[in-house]
């Protein structure tokens, strides 16, 4: 079975800094990583391949430097990497992104075999929207399984799959028909280290690189900024609260003395809280 994993290269959010004066993002020197949520998707795909055989292709849309992330995915054991890169994609929102990725997935199907399963992470750590997975599913007409915690059963010969997915207030056990788009829940597996052989193969692998035309896209009005119904009106840093925080004196004070001041200020500000606490502490 041919499985495709859609990934995104993202800035390592732990390293993002905002310029204190201009309030703009300081991008210089911020390392990029594979979106951590996508690694759960990749590992799940590799496990399926190990059991039922086949190939795993990783796909990403991004600038040419996103090749690094694809190569990293190959070291984990992916069989093939496809980079979708074109300046026409710049400024894509989720709708334009799902359009381009759906086109690339169709092309991947023609070139390397139709994938009955496409995986993504549940969301990215930079955009945090969780919209692209469902967008791809709708565009390709795949059945959509989001927040999947476990693949319970897969029967490619009859074309069915059963999964457990996180739902509001519990876990749904769902069965549906292939092809499916699965977004994996975090923490359900751990990405493998990859073998030495994988690392060697990854370092020499040729990354399949497509521009919009290569991916079969002819309508450029559906790409990038032009294909994005949403626009960013402004980016800003919220102003501090009008009233500055009231600071508790700490210089030359013992921690017990500071604690006493904090408690008394809390009760002064929220008198009702004292009654609540008393009731709680009195026990049921």
């Amino acid at each position, binding site marked *: 079975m041919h499985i495709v994993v859609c990934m995104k290269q*993202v800035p390592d*959010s732990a390293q*993002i800094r905002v310029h204190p004066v201009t309030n703009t*993002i300081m991008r210089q020197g911020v390392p990029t990583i594979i979106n*951590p949520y996508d690694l759960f998707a990749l590992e799940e795909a590799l496990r399926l391949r190990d059991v039922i055989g086949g190939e795993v292709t990783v796909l990403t849309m991004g600038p040419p430097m996103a090749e690094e992330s694809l190569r990293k995915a190959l070291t984990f054991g992916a069989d093939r990497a496809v980079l979708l890169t074109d300046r026409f994609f710049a*400024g894509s929102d*989720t709708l334009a*992104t*799902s359009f381009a990725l759906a086109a690339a997935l169709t092309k991947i199907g023609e070139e390397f075999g139709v994938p009955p399963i496409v995986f993504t992470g549940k969301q*990215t*750590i930079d*955009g*945090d*929207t969780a919209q*692209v997975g*469902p*967008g791809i599913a*709708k*565009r390709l007409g795949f*059945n*959509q399984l*989001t927040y999947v915690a476990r693949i319970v059963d897969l029967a490619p010969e009859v074309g069915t799959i059963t999964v*457990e997915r996180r*739902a509001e*207030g*519990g*876990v749904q*056990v*769902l*069965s549906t*028909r292939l092809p499916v788009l699965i977004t994996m829940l975090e923490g359900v597996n751990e990405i493998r280290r990859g073998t030495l052989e994988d690392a060697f193969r990854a370092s020499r692998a040729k990354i399949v690189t497509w521009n919009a035309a290569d991916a079969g896209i002819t309508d450029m009005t559906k790409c990038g*900024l*032009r294909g994005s*119904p949403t626009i*960013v*009106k*402004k*980016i*800003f*840093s919220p102003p*501090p609260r009008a009233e500055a*925080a*009231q*600071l508790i004196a*700490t210089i030359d004070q013992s*921690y*017990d003395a*500071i*604690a006493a001041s*904090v*408690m008394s*200020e809390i009760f002064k*500000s*929220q008198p009702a*809280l004292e009654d*609540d*606490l*008393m009731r709680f*502490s*009195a026990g049921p």
Partner: protein
Amino acid sequence: MSDAPKSAPAPSGRAGTKKELPEHFKAYKHVWVAVESEHGLVHPVSFELLGEGRKLADKRGVELGAVVMGSDPQAIADAANACFEYGADIVYTVTDPVLTHYRNEAYTKALTDIVNIYQPEILLLGATTLGRDLAGSVATTLRTGLTADCTELAIDEEGSLAATRPTFGGSLLCTIMTLNFRPQMATVRPRVLSMPKRTPGRQGRIVQHPLGLAEEDVVTKILQFIADRDSNKAQLAYAEIVVAGGLGLRSAENFQLVKDLAAVLGAEYGGSRPLVQKGWITGDRQIGQTGKTIRPKLYIAAGISGAIQHRVGVEGSDLIVAINTDPNAQIFQFAHLGIVADAVELLPALTEAFRKYLSVNRLAG
């Protein structure tokens, strides 16, 4: 997978220009909330959205609509009444056995169909697992704009929805608009908006809509539903007091100090995003934009720097008490009460102070 954070609008691109709304979208009118009801109960986020939707509708001079989907006529009638009492003028109902439990294909069809027929200009959903699953599908089917996890909704001077959300991993805020497509869609997380006042007896109109889908047309089947055991779950979102820790605690062991104070206060405990990434706490205890949004009476943040993604998740708290060694930490920009001190030293003192005070006063009482 998701959208790339976009750079500031380029002057020459379409982002900088306000085009006339295409003719076929001009009929789109009214503000809608897609109500989330599972297992016979309406999710509180739907009422929170109705409260906000009411303000947006009044600003636009239009009606507030609610969409209720499900299978049990009584549950739907009850939900519709609740929607009226929380501010809806009109409730669109879709009642069909196929909608007994949430399934993407059936709910996407139901919601997409009534949007196409009744044409709202704004459509809001809760940013729950259900709402996010549904909103992404509906927006793609309608080929319109969707802004996820908004922290503020407003109507701009030209009458469009201005949806503000954190961006760049929560380090800045951005305002996003859908100018040339309708409906303008947005999701909001539970507890980001306050619960509106309920007006008992308030009434409105009900419009019934047929689903037009048979069970055999839906390929996805629910085999089983395993409900979460509530005792194991963090109840952060609706807690009255929350104590949270951040990297300033320095080690996973020191996180116990947060739990100790929470135990004395009868509070829920949580932490900032880096603690989840380090594995000190589980994901269901993460506080902030990508974790839980909280609105407690008292929030104590120990050793948390206060990045924007954290700020937007706690700003609804009545009283924010921040402990941090860095006097320039961002958290002091939005805390009410600040203590420049080492949380690892202060937390035990605070726990002891509350413990003593409460036991003495209980005895006295």
